[in-house]
């Protein structure tokens, strides 16, 4: 065998295949990216209270999280959802592919509709939940918290479909609150009143298309808007101008998180651990264990995890259940341990708050069956409330209640009301 020789490097900055890759090196200088809306958000960010959302600099609050929360419930709140992971799924087999990957029956999802769904690995453990937008008979957008490109590409084998990640290319805004409809109408999106809950439609904006859906993460009247990144700022300005007289207000995540909890919605890696991130095998969850069992459609054909999900149901291998709790008193029980008869540990609260809309102390918790499932009496939470460097330990009664914790008629009213 001939002795191998040294391979010298060649600078290829002029090479059209390599040059863009080299040009992208400089990202290391910006650990937290701005979204396409960042100039507007930066101008409003008086608290300068940022968090890392998938590598983006996102605000916890802009000026006052309380007031931002009430903007969702009383006016119209504008929340930047651009960092959400987005995949474009397109092709003649796109429907069949997604039907195979996700839990719900995608053949029932008509073009111009959106549904909330989830997808599992082969063992039936939840990889993520998210929203699936059917933009046309052969084109979809899947939005999620975590990233799944290898899973989607590997699952696409045998299907005539292309999957591409478009998180950076597409900017997203949520406009949520009682005056959200009026703001969009006044902004000139003619026909917006026709959108029922989970409908979507394309509208013209600044020479481009904006996709508006009547969806959201607040349990309130609301819409989500997706637009090419280069049209983001003009869209923001258009909404802000139209909403000026209707109390539009940009908000941070703290306010949104309160609204979502009142709506009883769960957050991946907040209320459950996604399968590709669970280091500890006992943290994996099947859909039935996190309140997503309703999505499972056994009538449709095979889908990823179906066999394991069926087996778990048949052999009673479902060990956990996710429930809504109403807790006595008004002290939030975040991350409190749940007990049966005050002493047997049966679960953990993953999110909790005093609900201004329900005037109740609410929580989402994961319990070990049968607690929360068939045994729902005599449940307690132990709250460690730190007050001036001392824990006030409280043992409070918890009642399993249905989610959502609040139900607002204006969310689904047709046509939507002015405010």
């Amino acid at each position, binding site marked *: 065998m001939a*002795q191998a020789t*040294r391979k010298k*490097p*060649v*600078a290829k900055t002029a090479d059209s295949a390599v040059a863009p890759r080299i040009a992208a090196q400089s990202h290391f200088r910006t650990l937290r990216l701005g979204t396409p809306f960042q100039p507007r958000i930066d101008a409003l960010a008086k608290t300068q209270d940022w968090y890392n959302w998938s590598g983006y600099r996102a605000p916890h609050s802009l000026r006052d999280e309380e007031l931002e929360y009430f903007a969702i419930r009383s006016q119209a709140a504008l929340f930047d959802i651009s960092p959400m992971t987005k995949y474009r799924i397109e092709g003649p087999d796109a429907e069949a592919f997604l039907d195979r990957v996700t839990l719900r029956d995608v053949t029932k999802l008509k073009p111009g509709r959106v549904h909330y769904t989830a997808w599992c690995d082969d063992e039936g453990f939840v990889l993520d939940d998210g929203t699936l937008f059917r933009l046309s008979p052969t084109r979809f957008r899947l939005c999620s918290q975590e*990233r799944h*490109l*290898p899973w989607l590409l590997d699952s696409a084998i045998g299907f005539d479909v292309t999957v591409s990640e478009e998180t950076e290319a597409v900017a997203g805004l949520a406009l949520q609150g009682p005056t959200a409809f009026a703001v969009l109408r006044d902004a000139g999106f003619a026909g917006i009143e026709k959108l029922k809950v989970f409908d979507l439609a394309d509208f013209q904006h600044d020479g481009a298309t904006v996709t508006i859906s009547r969806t959201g993460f607040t349990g309130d009247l609301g819409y989500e808007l997706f637009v090419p990144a280069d049209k983001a700022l003009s869209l923001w300005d258009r909404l802000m101008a139209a909403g000026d007289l209707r109390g539009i207000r940009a908000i941070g995540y703290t306010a949104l998180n309160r609204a979502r909890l009142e709506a009883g919605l769960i957050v991946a890696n907040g209320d459950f651990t996604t399968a590709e991130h669970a280091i500890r*095998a006992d943290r994996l969850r099947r859909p039935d264990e996190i309140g997503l069992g309703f999505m499972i459609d056994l009538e449709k054909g095979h889908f990823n995890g179906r066999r394991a999900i069926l087996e778990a149901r048949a052999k009673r291998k479902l060990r956990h259940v996710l429930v809504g709790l109403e807790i006595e008193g008004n002290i939030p029980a975040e991350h409190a341990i749940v007990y049966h008869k005050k002493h047997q540990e049966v679960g953990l609260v993953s999110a909790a708050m005093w609900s201004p809309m329900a005037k109740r102390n609410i929580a989402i918790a994961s319990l070990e069956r049968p607690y929360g499932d068939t045994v729902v009496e005599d449940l307690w939470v132990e709250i460690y409330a730190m007050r001036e460097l001392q824990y006030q330990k409280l043992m409070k009664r918890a009642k399993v209640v249905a989610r959502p914790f609040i139900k607002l008629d204006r969310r689904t009213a047709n046509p939507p009301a002015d405010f």
Partner: protein
Amino acid sequence: MATMKAWDAIVIGGGHNGLVNACYLQRAGLDVLVVEKNDWVGGAATSRELTPGFLYSNCSYVCSLFRPEIMRDLELPRFGLQVISYEGGAVFTRDGDYLANYRDHDAHRREFARFSKRDAEAYDRYARDVTRQCRFIQPLLMRTAPDPTSLKPRDLGELLYLGKKFAGLSAEEMALTLRFWTMSISEFLDEYFETDVIKANFALSGIIGTALGPMSPGTAYVLLHHYMGEVDGSVGAWGYARGGMGAVTKALAASFKSSGGTIRTGAEVDHVLVNRGKAKGVVLAGGEEVYGKLVVSNADVKRTFLKLVEEKELPDIFLRRVKNFKIRGSSGKVNIALDSLPEFPALPKDSPVYRGDMHFTDSMERMERAYDDWKAGRWSADPFLDMVIPTTLDPTMAPPGKHFMSCFVQYAPPKVNGRDWTDADRDGFAESVIAQISDYSPGFRDRIVHMEVRTPREIEAEVGLTEGNIFQGELTFDQLLFNRPVPGYAQYSSPVGGLYMCGSSTHPGGGVMGAPGRNAAAEILRDLAKSTSHMSPAHDVI
């Protein structure tokens, strides 16, 4: 005269494991002597000033595996040990680019996405699986491997522990564990990634210190071995020991002496004194006899039983297995003093990569080709380098503005074309390294102030590692757990009564980990019916 005294224990070799062992024994109340052939202690964890103003990490050069339980037990911070985390490095590519590893999760993903969006998003699954396996293995490091043929309650207990840990895995994890311990790193990475440079970026941890190529079965475990360390709880992280890796053994030696231990340097052991099948001490190269109630060898299993103990004292099968123990030399080391920081045109001047580990092997094939040279009995013409410049974070190793660069080089055969290394070979080996660096850093040669070149010949001669193998024996599954170093003798004892092993040839293996030295001390103290209450158990993995 000291020669008449019988020490409670004599430790042969002042490497990190010998010193860890000696520290624990001394702290248990034994009167311990360490004999070291060099005029300095440290073994393969040394920092010597070979040219004025520059301190090298002459052999080992980065720190992750050294167990924090040992650092605490032996009060090493009090004796000057400090380990500093560094940012991951980069692989330079031949098209004028590089692939970096950043500590920030999202920056890391974006960096990979420059090469492949798919692979960028595959990293989480890879990290999850590797982390799961590390969590399985970590608690085994600080325990004596059970003897599967023994019916002693402790062995049964340890076997049960191992069985329970394994049974605690899901079916999927069990499958992964077995695959991990047997697959090639190349095949393992194929399950997660499809981009060559990204695979090469990870594969390097599967070959370092091993006379195997990335396509050889068994190399996946070697990767795991490099991942199961930590820097202060950050699992998988690597750091620099401030003052060079010699700081580890310097602190150990100081700890040992402060608890009353004695070190004799310049004291090479010629052989172990054996009387009626029992070790009675050692005979030094000058003929001096030093007596000890027991002898602990930090030397590798081949050196210990083929050079320091007479054949007639050993059972045939044991001897044959020791002879067949795989401890093949595969690497060398080039330490360089630089009068200024080298520049890499491909790398932005403000890149954190300068402070991490740098590599030039950007494809699996190049890595395997480098191994082909080794098989043919040559050093690699296009070697794999693991290159770091610790002085970018550690101001103690060179004058301001000047730098120490450490290049770990693979592959270097124990013999060149079947004959011994010559000085000319050594120079040719060094040239292959300097030429490769110069390809990526023009003018590199002009910055060189001094250079220390170590082929397997130099490593064996100075450190005493057989064939210059940095792990004191390869980390293949047939040489791990209760088979390390040989079946039946995995519990630090040997066929010679009172003669123990404490080097990296024993469980859990190589790297500057200290666990073999510690575990051996625990066994010895148990045999002596002494307390081990001064030895922390392994930290919980929760």
